[in-house]
Structure formats: structure tokens, C-alpha cells
């Protein structure tokens, strides 16, 4: 599959998804969403995704992978994935707003603004008369200052916290590939046993799918709810999977 048209910039997972669908001139449907799943993951990895937005991208990625799985395996259904907002409807709604935003941008740029009565001049005309407020006391003021600090603390800390979320697909692929080389076979449960967050589990699963697709590994599952065993593919190519995958 060729990726000839480049998407230079996207604002979030829905923006990326919409651009991919429109680039291929597809209608928004489950089928078209499934068809751009791989491109979505590729772009998500190749461009910089803000760490604090990674989780949002992963939610969409997992839905796309799910749609694709359903397409490949008729009758396959997962209750948890079926619940929650419908990505197709969400994207349709998002598309309407993107169209409206373009119109608003035109109005914004047209320069046909309205103006209030000028504030600075109103101020100059009035005389300054000292009129102290009754509700400003030392106690109230120090209380307010503490509240302001409490309010901005999480904002200042935000970037540091968010980095945790960004266990990237790169890292998981590298990690998984390394471990299979070492042990020949490991189980999926062992592979994800240190993972505490749902989005990291999704990344790990995507990494596994990527390696399967490229025939670096084989997976075997005895029945539906059993653990998956992962082993190196007997005809595994002699190259670095990362180079092929996300160059």
C-alpha cells in the first residue's frame, strides 16, 4: 500500500482520521474506517503526538483495529468495544464542525468586526475616586491566593505527568522483539504483566499485531479465552522490525 499523499499536520485523532478518509475520497462508514486503520497507526507513530494526547489517539486506534478485526473475522464481537460512543457517528459530527470552522475562519479573516464603545477613553474621562471594597480583607485575600495556587498547580505539573502515558509503540515492539529473541516463546500475559494502564495494553497489542503482520513472530491461542503464546517466526527476516515498520 502506497502512502503517496502526506498529511503534514493534524490536531487530534479525529482530525487525522478525517483527513485519511477524505484523502482516499471515502464516505464515512465502518468499512472505510477499517480500511484506514493501518495508515492511522502509521501516522500516529510517524508524527509527533503530544504525550498528553496519546491516550486519545490510542482509544481511536483500538476502535479502528477492532473494526478491522470484525471485518476479517465475521461473527467476532466484543461487548466492551461495542459499548461507548460510536466512532462513525462521532466522526460525522466532527466533520460538520470542521466544515463550519472553515466558514467561521473566513468571517474571522474578513475583518468585518463590531466594536464596543472604547474602554480606554471611558476610563480617561472618569475621575479616579478611591472606593475600597467591603469584601476585601487580609484573611479573604490569603485564602484566595491559596486557591489560585491550588488551581494552577496541576496545570504546571501537567506535562510531567502526561509523559508516563507515552509508552510508545516503538518501545513495545523493540521490547517484545528483544524478549522473543531471548526466550523463543513467551506468553502475552507475561508480556503485559507490568502494564498498569489500559492504553498501554492497547499499545502492546498493536505492537504484537505489527510484528505478526511483518512475520517476525507467530501467535497461537488454544481457545478463545486462553493466553496467547508468542514465538519467533521460523522464517523471520534478518532485519530490524523498527526500520521496516516506521521508517
Amino acid at each position: 500500500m502506497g502512502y503517496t499523499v502526506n498529511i503534514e499536520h493534524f490536531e487530534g485523532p479525529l482530525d487525522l482520521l478525517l483527513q485519511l478518509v477524505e484523502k482516499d475520497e471515502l464516505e464515512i462508514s465502518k468499512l472505510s474506517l477499517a480500511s484506514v486503520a493501518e495508515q492511522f497507526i502509521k501516522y500516529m507513530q510517524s508524527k509527533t503526538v503530544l504525550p498528553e494526547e496519546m491516550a486519545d489517539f490510542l482509544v481511536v486506534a483500538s476502535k479502528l483495529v477492532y473494526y478491522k478485526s470484525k471485518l476479517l473475522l465475521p461473527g467476532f464481537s466484543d461487548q466492551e468495544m461495542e459499548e461507548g460512543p460510536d466512532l462513525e457517528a462521532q466522526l460525522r459530527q466532527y466533520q460538520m464542525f470542521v466544515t463550519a470552522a472553515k466558514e467561521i475562519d473566513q468571517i474571522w479573516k474578513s475583518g468585518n468586526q463590531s466594536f464596543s464603545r472604547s474602554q480606554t477613553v471611558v476610563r480617561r474621562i472618569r475621575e479616579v475616586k478611591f472606593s475600597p471594597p467591603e469584601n476585601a480583607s487580609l484573611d479573604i485575600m490569603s485564602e484566595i491566593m491559596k486557591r489560585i495556587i491550588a488551581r494552577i498547580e496541576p496545570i504546571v505539573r501537567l506535562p510531567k505527568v502526561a509523559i508516563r502515558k507515552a509508552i510508545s509503540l516503538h518501545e513495545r515492539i523493540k521490547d517484545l522483539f528483544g524478549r522473543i529473541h531471548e526466550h523463543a516463546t513467551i506468553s502475552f500475559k507475561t508480556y503485559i504483566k507490568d502494564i498498569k494502564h489500559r492504553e498501554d495494553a492497547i499499545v502492546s497489542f498493536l505492537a504484537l499485531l505489527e510484528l505478526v503482520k511483518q512475520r517476525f513472530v507467530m501467535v497461537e491461542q488454544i481457545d478463545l479465552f486462553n493466553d496467547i503464546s508468542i514465538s519467533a517466526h521460523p522464517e523471520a527476516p534478518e532485519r530490524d522490525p523498527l526500520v521496516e515498520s516506521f521508517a
Partner: protein
Amino acid sequence: MNLDQLIEATLFAAARPMTLRKLAELAKAEAEDVKKAVADLAERLDEGSGLMLQNYGNEVELVTKPEAAEIVKTVVKDDEQGELTRASLEALTILAYRGPMTRPELEQVRGVQSSLILRNLMIRGLVEQKEDERLGQPTYAITFDFLKHLGLKSVTDLPDYQALRGHTAIVDMLNQLNEPEKEKQEDNKSDLNV
């Protein structure tokens, strides 16, 4: 002096948006009469004035008509808003059509976390936090500054307003309709308990 003229003078002096309630209080008039006078004023201005009435939520402000922008710009200091980034534009558009709304609601539509973009827009004065909360969350809405920059009388003048505002309005209405219903049921329940 008629009530609509009194309101016109009040808005002129205030030089900022005012709630209909505040106007009624200042003019010592009934809410219904104020509402009608505001509508009369808006119509009179539309017909022959260089000014117009802008309204959003339950507030109104007296501003210049957008057709006068070119000349007015030469006598006022511009607020220099500059261009909007795609993300800002997207968030503003959603808030303009669907606001006031909570942050989770905005994020649901955008599909991506939006706390920083909201903060940026609030610092630029294009979005503000409203007094009302919904489900324990603060709600956000566009400001009069944003409306002014677009030269619109009201958000209802936005392209395709009804279609895009769409079902949320209906959902809100249904929620409001359901609430008394629920309370009634609760009451009934407690009756049975007694």
C-alpha cells in the same frame, strides 16, 4: 423617555454586556417589558442606525455594525487577535454552536483532551467560564469579544446554526423535561415508603 431609549442609554454608558435582569433592575421595570423593549430597540437599530444590539445567553451589548468596521478601526485601538490556529478555531466553533458546555462534552466532540486549548482561549478573552455548572462540571461559552470579532448579532446568525446546534438542544430539553418527572417518581417512592 421610552423604556427602549432608556435601555439604549444604559448600554451606551455601561460600554459592556449587561444581563436583561440587571437592565430591569436599573430601569425599575418588569422583565417582560424589558424583553419587549430590547426587541424594539434591536429592530429600530437594524432599520436605520450605525449601531446594533448583540445578544448572547441572557446578555446584550450595544456595538457598531460590521459594515462600519473599516472606518471604526481607524479610531479605536485594535485588540490584535491575529489568526486562529486550527485547534482554537475548532474549539471555538464547537463552543459557539453547542455551548455553554462542559470540558468533557467539548472533548467528546473533539476526540482529544482540551484543557490547554480552553485555557488559551480564556486568556485571549474568546471563551469564558460561566456561573452555571452541569453535573458538577463548570461550563464554558464564547464571549462577546468573539461575537464582536465576527461582527455577528447573535450565534444564531452562524452558518447552518439550527442544523449544527441540532440534537444537543433537544437532548437538553429532554433532560429538563425528565428532571421534574424523576422528582415526581422519587416523591411517589417515598410516599410508598411511609
